């Protein structure tokens, strides 16, 4: 497989600057995903350039669930960031298109968090 992958850990505050670096380097935003951990969420940003995948990862504690936006560099990130707000319950600061939790229509708030282990409404 030529699909090389590497993950770099960064502070939450550096996310926007890091995204701008990737943008300047000609990378394409592939995805933003979240993984629930004990007491927080791991957010992974993946970028592609010439079939190489490079990811940046940061952690967001449940006690302070805010995340800066990367839409300054990648406008298309608004879909992923609204998804994070809806399904994981984060607050993304500075979103240009903010659906305020209504991007998905769903039975419960923030279903994809560790505090919702069952994930079945009602």
């Amino acid at each position, binding site marked *: 497989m030529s699909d090389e992958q590497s993950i770099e850990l960064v502070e939450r505050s550096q996310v926007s600057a890091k995204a701008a670096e990737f943008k300047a380097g000609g990378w*394409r935003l592939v995805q933003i995903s979240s993984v629930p951990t004990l007491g927080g969420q791991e957010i992974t940003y993946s970028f592609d350039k010439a079939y190489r995948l490079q990811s940046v990862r940061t952690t967001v504690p449940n006690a302070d669930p805010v995340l800066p936006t990367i839409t300054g560099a990648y406008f298309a990130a608004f879909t992923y960031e609204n998804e994070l707000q809806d399904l994981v319950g984060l607050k993304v600061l500075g979103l240009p298109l903010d659906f305020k939790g209504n991007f998905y229509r769903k039975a419960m708030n923030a279903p994809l968090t560790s505090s919702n282990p069952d994930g079945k409404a009602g």
Partner: protein
Amino acid sequence: MGTRTVIPFGPQHPVLPEPVHLDLVMEDEKIVEAIPSLGYVHRGLEKLAAKKDFNDMVFVSERICGICSFIHSMAYSTAIENIMKVEVPERAQYLRVMWAEMSRVHSHLLWLGLAADALGYESLFMHSWRVREKVLDVIEETSGGRVIFGTCKIGGVRRDVDAATLDKTLKMFDDIEVECQEIVHVFAGDPSVHKRVAGVGILSKDDAYALGAVGPVLRASGVTWDARKLGYAAYGKLEWEPVVETGCDVPARVLVRAKEIFQSIGLIRQAIKKMPKGPVEVRVTGNPNGETIMRVEQPRGELVYHIQANGTKNLARFRVRTPTFANIPPLVKMLPGCELADVPIIVLSIDPCISCTER
């Protein structure tokens, strides 16, 4: 500046087989802004990973979408195989290519039909679907299913296909290729189709790349990128080049998909001819532990599986980023400046798959 009105497009619209919703901000007949919203078919299946065994998740992933079903299960299985370092037998790799390309042919024919319907060209719609049924016959002959194949599993594929059936498959595709040529000839050469769509839904090369477009939308804007070049399954051992068009508009997207039908038929032939003999699955024991981001090319574009496993039978995270999700920002970019009457065909030109997107 004229008066602005907001026209809701969808969720129920005659041209849409599935519910999606756009708020169109209009100035007279021109679109100024398009705001999407999702969730009419949101099921929340990523959460099922916490309840189902990782082996059973193959069935769930196959049912994320009933059109690219096999490619979903292949992506998921390959992701788990990468984590568990399972060597899949070669014959299974070639069979996976064969089935994946069959689903691409049926998906593109389905899309060409829907596009013809959106243009008001009903007989072309019916012909595309008539030929598609022949592809479904081959799929049924080889896998047993029509739209849900159920043949992929972690460690290989569930059933082998004997030599006689493979021969028959080749013959049937010779026939299908001729019929596809006739259909594509109408799409590419018919002046009324051309007049209707030329220059509609422009997405420049830079915008396509910057907004993260994938699949035929990206390639129709002149960017050479096809996830199959990553070489998963047996794609690394086959000879082919991504289809690229530079028109940046709806006809370019039609052409990319039309040419990909023939490319896929070519790949099916290669896969069948190069397919070695041998077993089609290996036994997989234990639970996965690790992480991977798996990318494959669906008919609609790059599909991403982010899997994190923690050594138990339930995955820590099962995350799917589908191609239509990535193509929403480009769609929002294409619409402003267009006429209201062009909205249906532009929305269709990204080949939206909503059940994929909303999971």
